[in-house]
């Protein structure tokens, strides 16, 4: 794949988006020849989706989900000397295209004609975890938003049927938040990484099956 050419394509997409959204496009990240991340403000979340669908050709829907950037207060549960439990309330490190807050909603669509995808992100302020629904953009977002709602406690404004999709009705808490503890791990500690077996291909000796190939 020609990295330079696709790079230009993706930059063009960002430029188009910036034309239409103006300052509402807060950040973006391009991995040349591979992928594209764009972060917008909360006000234009639905509009950005519409633009991506109607004007940029991202017609096929992939998913809507969210991410909690808080470092886990419980460590990774790996109970191992190799990866010591980090301090609680460490600094929030966000990913591509940046981020200002703990919760970020991101969605992805791809373009059948250009053979590329786009990840749109939006920051949610901690005191108001709500964002406009994407159902008008892609009808399939319905269930994804229900999932994100129960997993993170995010409200999708305008969602017609905001009930739990996976969890039992009286389930308490939002499991995918980083501060949701997995109780079993506290009752019974994970045996941890006892031993790391040597990787089989490490020696990279020539295969004995070459004759067959």
């Amino acid at each position: 794949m020609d990295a330079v050419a696709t790079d230009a394509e993706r930059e063009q997409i960002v430029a188009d988006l910036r034309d239409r959204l103006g300052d509402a496009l807060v950040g973006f990240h391009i991995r040349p020849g591979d992928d594209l991340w764009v972060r917008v403000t909360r006000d234009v979340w639905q509009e950005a989706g519409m633009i991506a669908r109607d004007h940029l050709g991202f017609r096929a829907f992939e998913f809507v989900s969210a991410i909690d950037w808080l470092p886990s207060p419980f460590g990774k549960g790996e109970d191992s000397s190799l990866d010591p439990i980090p301090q609680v309330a460490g600094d929030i490190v966000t990913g591509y295209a940046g981020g200002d807050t703990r919760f970020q909603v991101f969605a992805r669509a791809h373009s059948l004609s250009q053979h590329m995808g786009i990840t749109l992100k939006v920051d949610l302020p901690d005191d108001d975890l709500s964002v406009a629904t994407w159902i008008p953009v892609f009808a399939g977002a319905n269930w994804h938003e229900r999932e994100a709602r129960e997993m993170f406690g995010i409200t999708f404004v305008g969602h017609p049927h905001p009930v739990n999709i996976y969890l039992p009705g009286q389930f308490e808490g939002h499991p995918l938040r980083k501060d949701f503890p997995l109780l079993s791990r506290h009752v019974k500690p994970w045996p941890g990484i006892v031993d790391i077996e040597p990787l089989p291909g490490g020696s990279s000796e020539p295969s004995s099956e070459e004759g067959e190939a």
Partner: protein
Amino acid sequence: MTAVSDRQKLAYVNSQAADGRVNLEFETEEGMTLNLGPQHPATHGTLRIVVKLDGEQVLSCEPVMGYMHRGYEKLTEVRTYPQVTTLINRIDWLGSFANEVPFILAAEKLMEIEAPPRAQWIRTILFELSRIANISLFVGDMALHIGAMTAAFYAFRDREFVLNQIESATGGRFHPNFNRIGGLKDDLPKGWVADTKASLERIRDFCDEMEILVEGNEIFQARTRGIGVIPSEIALQFGLSGANLRASGVDWDLRRDQPVGLVWDKVDWKVITHPDGDSFARFWVRLQEIRESCNIVEQLLDGLPAGPYMAKVPRVIKVPEGEAWVATENPLGEMGYYLVSQGGLGPFRVKIRTASFNNVSVVPWVCRGVYVPDVVTILASLYFILGDIDR
């Protein structure tokens, strides 16, 4: 064995049973509300479809899932990368090998290593074999749901030949856990190539048999043609993928259009599409895809390169910071992993985009005004796997 604790347990169970009343708002004055599931033969496991009926006609239909929700996305956050592989091949339990691949590819992308060519070829071969094993079961299963019993037995019978090959290469019938970051666990055993070619012949015979027994049957056609039509625009709106999308006439196959890290672009094959978008089209497309997969595997077996099957990777796998999205064309459709790493031994966040979740989300749209038997036909033709919906 004490009676008291039993009663306590029962009390707990009964309190949980309150959940059985989810979606009671669905109940209205008119018509009959019927639950198909959670335990129902038509739902391959534990999907629950609440249908409101007028006579035998479906007025509206609402899937209720989560009965198989195992919390994958949370569990991946507390596992290391090698452990995650074990876990995620249980998402779509029929195409386990194919589940591992996109995750491994996403991790490899962030680590900026590439598996050696032999590993890529073997990955592609096993990927396609798991597709054959998966879809051949679909063929029998769809026939079973329409009432033809024998086809399902043939599917189970001939699928075993492929499972044998997967087992002899990887050691596992179902959950191979054969991928490693940077390559594979092991090389192929001796004589595997010839055996696989022999089993492909079996599968081709199976396809012929199914074309006569199921596809060519007038009753089957009467039951599936024109039933559950999904136009291409709706399919894209709901994010359908895989054979469901191609059966709606959209010429889109990630194997051809975005062959990340695997070698489909090295062989000659064609993408199967069908313009109708009905249940028959979905069945037909899948059946033809088995044949195409056989072709792909055969060509790949002929051109299998020599060399190492594992790249140089560090002993303890830590993936550098970053985000990566890798999707592949799995048996059920597009399966993608959005992997966020912050440099630890395990992922920071994994968003698993499974095919069935999106595929089934179209059910309320497509199941309006059909008859009860058609609901079963449509569900069977959309071909979902519960683990793939609920994760």
